[in-house]
């Protein structure tokens, strides 16, 4: 893939094309992202592609600060948005770009879009959020798992046994009621995702269905990125190369 960003080029970014492919799976909490990323990774590896998976808030650099900030709820909106941006930049430069340069497929479980949606929901302007992440690499494909809020609600309860404080946007003080806050917050986020859909060329997949059905649709979007037939039904058995004796 080309090493193009959404705007500014960070110093030190390799100029040439990157041999690997960056595939992003986006969607709200409970949209089935993590399940889909695992299925997709499995499929790609079976097909012989080296896959590096990545997500948000996994960088060594500031993850401790993010955890601390979340416990104390002490940081303001711009500060929190910037702290997440440090984390993302660190992952992009120290993990994503080197993996792509080495020819791996990088599967990102969420990317800048979630970070931008969260920042805007907390009062940042869209223009500011867009420019903040203008250094981010443009993915080859952004799959957006689109699920209704009621579906997200049930999956969230199944996952956490309740509703998560942050995923319900309780820090925004939209409502003191967790249940009501969840819906208001998801509405804010989905408004941002709707706006980004065209701007960032999201490919939407109906995620109100079972994981296998979602996976089938995602494979149809992923397959064209590879010369080999990823996702296409394989002939039974393993093909072996002809023996040297036979070809001599």
């Amino acid at each position, binding site marked *: 893939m080309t090493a193009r960003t959404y705007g500014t080029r*960070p110093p*030190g970014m390799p100029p040439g094309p990157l041999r690997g492919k960056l595939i992003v799976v986006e969607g709200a909490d409970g949209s089935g992202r993590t399940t889909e990323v695992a299925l997709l990774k499995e499929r790609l590896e079976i097909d012989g592609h080296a896959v590096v998976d990545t997500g948000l808030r996994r960088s060594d*650099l500031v993850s401790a*600060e993010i955890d601390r900030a979340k416990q104390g709820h002490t940081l303001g909106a711009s500060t929190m948005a910037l702290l997440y*941006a*440090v984390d993302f930049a*660190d992952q992009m430069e120290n993990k994503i770009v080197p993996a792509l340069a080495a020819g791996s497929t990088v599967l990102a479980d969420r990317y800048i879009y979630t970070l931008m949606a969260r920042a805007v929901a907390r009062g940042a302007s869209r223009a500011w959020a867009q420019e*903040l992440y203008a*250094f981010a690499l443009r993915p080859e494909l952004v799959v957006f798992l689109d699920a209704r809020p009621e579906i997200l609600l049930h999956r969230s309860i199944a996952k956490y046994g309740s509703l998560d404080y942050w995923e319900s946007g309780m820090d925004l003080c939209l409502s003191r009621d967790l249940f009501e806050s969840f819906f208001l917050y998801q509405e804010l986020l989905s408004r941002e995702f709707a706006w980004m859909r065209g701007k960032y060329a999201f490919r939407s997949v109906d995620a109100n269905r079972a994981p296998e059905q979602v996976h089938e649709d995602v494979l149809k979007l992923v397959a064209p990125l590879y010369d080999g037939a990823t996702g296409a039904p394989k002939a039974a058995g393993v093909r072996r190369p002809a023996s040297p004796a036979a070809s001599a």
Partner: protein
Amino acid sequence: MPETPSPAHGYPGRLLVFEGLDGSGKSTQAALLGKWLAAQGYRVFATEWNSSELVSNVIRRGKKKGLLTPTTFSLLHATDFADRFERRILPPLRAGYLVLCDRYAYTAFVRDAARGCDPNWVRTIYSFAPRPDLAFYFRVAVGTTLHRKLASRQKINYYEAGMDLGLADEVEESYRRFQSRLKREYDRIASADRFTIIDSSRPVEEIQQTLRGHIRPILANFPTGAALTHDG
């Protein structure tokens, strides 16, 4: 692109900014000015932008693993500034104080530009920080700041010398080159953003009188109140 993306703040307070290289004498002058203003009964709030615990912890961690890049370095300082701005600068500004900032967003603009970050990108990130009512730039020769540093036996910090950029193997030489880059950028911004330029080679007393002269127009119709507050 406008040099200053942020509009005037419109809060009841006043924002006064002191910029310049390390060792340009800006902190001494800011402190003297704060004393004088407080003695006249103005509500003064003084704040500095030095490395916070957040930044120094992360930098220590990053340095050990060699993880910091110009982009993460820039964003990390922006995080720190945003935190200070939201907590230390905005509340007193809204409460009607004379807020004296020893370093402001311009420090980041020059430092990030010297590390090769896109200046328009950096400006936009800091667009939450309003334009100051008055900005002083303490102009000083790089040789003078190095001399002051060595004379007071201060250790030259790795990033202050721009050692991460590989400009020179030797710390003093790297410091000279990196600080010269900062100075060029300061000179450019000071003229584009119409800073009040202060010649740091003048005697302390003389500079202080100059500053007091420049601040008078800002104090017209500005109410006096309580004594000096410092964010220590």
